[in-house]
């Protein structure tokens, strides 16, 4: 009802379960009467089918998602590991034959075929220079090979989270090159939070009447573009600050910074 999601997690919520690598979580996750079905596990948990045990592999918070009955370990790291379906921001490093090599801040550079743009043909395709910033999605993430990305919309777009399919030349599609603006690196947890609807800091910035564009990659890169560079810097700073502030503090911080920036711009 207009209340941000982030206000709902305080008193009355379930106690936070902290796990370390090696913790045996079998009693917490596997119910004894489950018919030997493997449990639904997300990141950070390992199910040993032969011994029927569930062990934590990372340190963090054990979280249970009731909608999908999934267990996972929430931890906030800065190191990205590519997974198929992730939408990431990549920076073109070089052209290698028919592929571009992008830096997606993972263990290996990602490959982008130079025709992987909407409506691109051999004669009509974008020519990206090193340093170009792209919003793309991961289409292959084998551990043994370099990950591959694409700027094409999956299927008809509806299955791809409502992505827009427009010709690459129009610059109106969801994926493709991001021009102008600036990008910063944030932690992976903050990137995931920014992508949720009703995120506190983006909401607060919008309510202040700022007009801006953001692109958030789950690999921890955030791109911001607005009408004035002062606002771009302000938005980047508020996003980074929001990681260590409670929702109420975030709203206060955004109001204060925007007010200070506006009065400075009027005065100057």
């Amino acid at each position, binding site marked *: 009802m207009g209340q*941000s*999601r*982030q206000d*709902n*997690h*305080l008193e009355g919520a379930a106690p*936070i379960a*902290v796990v*370390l*690598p*090696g913790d045996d979580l079998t009693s917490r996750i596997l119910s004894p009467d489950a018919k030997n079905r493997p449990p639904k596990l997300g990141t*950070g948990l390992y199910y040993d089918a032969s011994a029927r045990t569930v*062990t934590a*592999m*990372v*340190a*963090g*918070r054990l*979280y249970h998602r009731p909608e999908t009955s999934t267990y996972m370990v*929430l*931890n*906030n*790291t*800065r*190191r990205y590991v590519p997974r198929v379906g992730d939408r990431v921001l990549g920076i073109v490093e070089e052209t290698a034959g028919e592929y571009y090599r992008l830096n997606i801040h993972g*263990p*290996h550079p990602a490959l982008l075929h130079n025709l992987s743009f909407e409506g691109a043909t051999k004669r009509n395709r974008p020519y990206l220079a090193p340093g170009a910033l792209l919003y793309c999605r991961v289409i292959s993430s084998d*551990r*043994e090979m370099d990950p591959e990305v694409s700027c094409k919309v999956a299927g008809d777009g509806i299955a791809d989270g409502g992505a827009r399919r427009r010709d690459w030349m129009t610059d109106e599609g969801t994926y493709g090159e991001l021009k102008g603006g600036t990008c910063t690196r944030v932690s992976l*947890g*903050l990137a995931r*939070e920014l992508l*949720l609807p009703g*995120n*506190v800091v983006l909401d607060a910035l919008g309510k202040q009447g700022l007009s801006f564009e953001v692109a958030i990659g789950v690999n921890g890169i955030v791109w911001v573009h607005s009408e004035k560079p002062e606002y771009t810097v302000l938005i980047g700073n508020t996003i980074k600050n929001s*990681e*260590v*502030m*409670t*929702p109420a503090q975030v709203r206060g911080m955004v109001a204060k910074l925007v007010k200070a920036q506006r009065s400075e711009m009027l005065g100057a």
Partner: protein
Amino acid sequence: KGGGDDEDASPESAAASAHPGYGATERELERFVGDAVAGCVALERYPRTVIEVVVQVIKGDGGVVSAAANAAALALMDAGIEMRFVPVATTCVVVPNGEVLLDPTAEEEAAEGVAAAVVVTDGTGGGGVLASMTSGTMSAGSLLSCIEGANRAGKAVLAFLRLAVEQKVTREAQTLWSV
């Protein structure tokens, strides 16, 4: 005089090596800490990658190797590297009268006739040893006492690491996560 197992920072040894502060001792300790900690990491999940842990000793007063190993384990946990369990290291010294001291100071490590053992366990107190490094001579019984002491102390150290992770997770739950 090599009494303990931490880096020898005295001026004579510094002048002797080409790179003061990084010599053969440091390389041996790198190997020891690296092997102890790598045994716990699920390396098969990270093919074609290098996991590099850099340990910088700012100030040491005994037990530097086990502090380095514990710090490396904590850094790997913080980075989200998948591990099968948490390695916990403890330093024990055996004094000439047979007594075993845990977590010695540099003075206790360098004392006359003292032998030291660094033991890495998995923190469950089950009696298993992941890696160990000794210096000086000690009886087999003393070594077993060191291992038992390290197992007991390992449980306390693991509880401390859990507390550190809890503090971080609780803070994040208030400020970062909206779930």
